[in-house]
């Protein structure tokens, strides 16, 4: 049995009287591909926002590799090993593709170079800069964006912007990668391509992946287990095929 990477216990948040998410329990094993699905407004992105520190949960805790990260600041959580992408793409638009990835590499211990070393152009500056560029190229090659590395990221087509977001999140060397609708706005070819990339990333970087997606083909083709949310509560949980065929889930999605 492989080790647990992420453990969520009774996680919940309420905004005033609205309970956006309540009593969420889940456990993600190492190198698992875990899906979080549900109709619009079910609270999926809210769960992501809690896991990455945007919101502070009102109840419950979550643990990454046994360490309690509940209520920590966003950058601390990222440095501990949870990286994310956004539903509405948030790239650094006025920077080139490779620089977007290099920002992701910023906190890695192997690219340490202080502010003073940068200002006075000490040898360590040149060394880290070169190494960062090399590493960023490597990551871009994996998602297939190496050719575009010197383009401004806002000039990329939608599908490639999504891939760049994944590359940037990956650059932070995460234990857990949270992908918020990675296939949204992609055509079927790109979606199939993305499925391969995600699988490849998991094997290559030993990263555990938690993803939100509406494309059920994508989810059932990729995820081992899913949690189905509706109105902030868990409808079904377990092996993908069983959970998606649960009568409650079908009712929530297509009515009944």
């Amino acid at each position, binding site marked *: 049995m492989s080790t647990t990477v992420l453990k969520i216990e009774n996680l919940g948040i309420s905004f005033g009287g609205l309970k956006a998410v309540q009593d969420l329990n889940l456990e993600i094993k190492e190198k698992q591909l875990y899906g979080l699905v549900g109709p619009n407004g079910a609270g999926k992105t809210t769960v992501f926002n809690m896991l990455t520190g*945007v919101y502070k949960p009102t109840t419950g805790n979550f643990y990454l590799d046994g360490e309690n990260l509940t209520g920590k600041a966003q950058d601390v959580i990222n440095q501990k090993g949870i990286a994310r992408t956004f539903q509405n793409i948030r790239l650094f638009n006025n920077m080139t593709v490779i*620089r977007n990835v290099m920002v992701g590499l910023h*906190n890695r211990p192997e690219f340490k170079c202080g502010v003073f070393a940068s200002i006075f152009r000490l040898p360590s500056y040149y060394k880290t*800069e070169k190494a960062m560029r090399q590493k960023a190229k490597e990551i871009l090659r994996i998602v297939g964006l190496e050719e575009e590395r010197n383009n*401004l990221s806002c000039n990329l087509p939608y599908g490639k912007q999504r891939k760049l977001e994944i590359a940037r999140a990956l650059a932070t060397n995460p234990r857990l990668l949270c992908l918020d609708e990675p296939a949204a706005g992609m055509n079927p070819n790109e979606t199939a391509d993305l499925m391969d990339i995600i699988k490849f990333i998991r094997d290559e970087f030993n990263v555990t992946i938690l993803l939100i997606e509406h494309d059920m083909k994508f989810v059932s083709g990729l995820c081992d287990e899913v949690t189905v949310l509706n109105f902030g509560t868990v409808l079904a949980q377990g092996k993908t095929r069983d959970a998606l065929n649960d009568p409650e889930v079908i009712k929530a999605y297509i009515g009944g």
Partner: protein
Amino acid sequence: MANMFAKIKWKHFINYIVVAIAMIVFGVMSLTGALSSSTVYLLEKIAIAIILAVSLSVVVGFLGELSLGHAGFMCIGAYLGGKASLLLEPVMGDGFLTLIVSMIVGGAIAALCGAVIGLPALRLKGDYLAIVTLAFGEIVRSIFMNTKKESFGGSLGLETPRYDKDILFIIAFVFVLITLAVLQNLIRSKHGRAITSIRDNEIASKATGINVTKYKLIVFTISSFFAGIAGVLYSFSNYTVQSSKFSYNYSIEILVMVVLGGMGSINGSIIAATLITFLDVKLQTILTGDLAVLQDLFYALVLIILVIYNNAPALKGFRETHNLKVLLDRFRKHSPADRKDDEAKWDRVPTKISMDEVLSVDLQPQTTYTPDKPKKEGK
């Protein structure tokens, strides 16, 4: 090592070179007595404006926060640097050393104030931060205005020691070079990328693990350090420091330089600072007597024209087709081989494309149409 020098991007050094050449040329001219004292004063003012504009440009153009308190930091530097030189003069003499030490003292205290103010203020964003910094500048100004005559001169202003004008102006230019070096090196490093990422998307920046507060504080502190240095230079160049000079009008004047030069462009800020200061001083000397009322009018008119020239879409298009590069290209194109190539290309452009052809493209992979090829857009 040799490899490192071969890879130097000269584009990155053009501003140092231009400033250094200006410093040497004007330095030699002033030492041989070829420059009038008013020209030396103008050059000092330009150097001060460049330091202010470049340091503010890092906050506004790269960090993306609006600060309207830059004159406040300058004020702190001017008063405390001036005071330091008065206090140090009996101990260290009225030479070069006192000047440098008091400049560093002024800069350091301004930086400290920047850090202290920044710590709570930088939790605010956008307009709110702008208003807090605006208020800070006004507070600083009125504190110095209401000091006792013995301490900081009060409303009469603080008299500073008089240094040799020629030396002062060379020192001002050396500090321009230092400002450029420090700020450009900061921007062109991993820390600079982190700072720019905060401007582009703060939420994503946090999610990528950037400590946003830390970087805002670093930028704010460094920027106020150089504003302080500029303040000390100002106090020596003017012989007196008057708190009325540092009103929010002056902060906005610095902001105008940054905006006019283009957000996120250090070279632009240098050019804009030079132009605006030159214009300001020249208008004051040309329009005297009864015409003095027109100074502000002309200043405002020129500003409006410059901003429109920079940003109006029609003029942007005009500049793209009528700049030096295009002109040079046109000269190059006159060789017959190039022209033939051009004509040939135009012949091949199909005049009519039927829908069938468009649809058939996907089915016939041997055609040259490649939808995934990245478009190289000329920038």
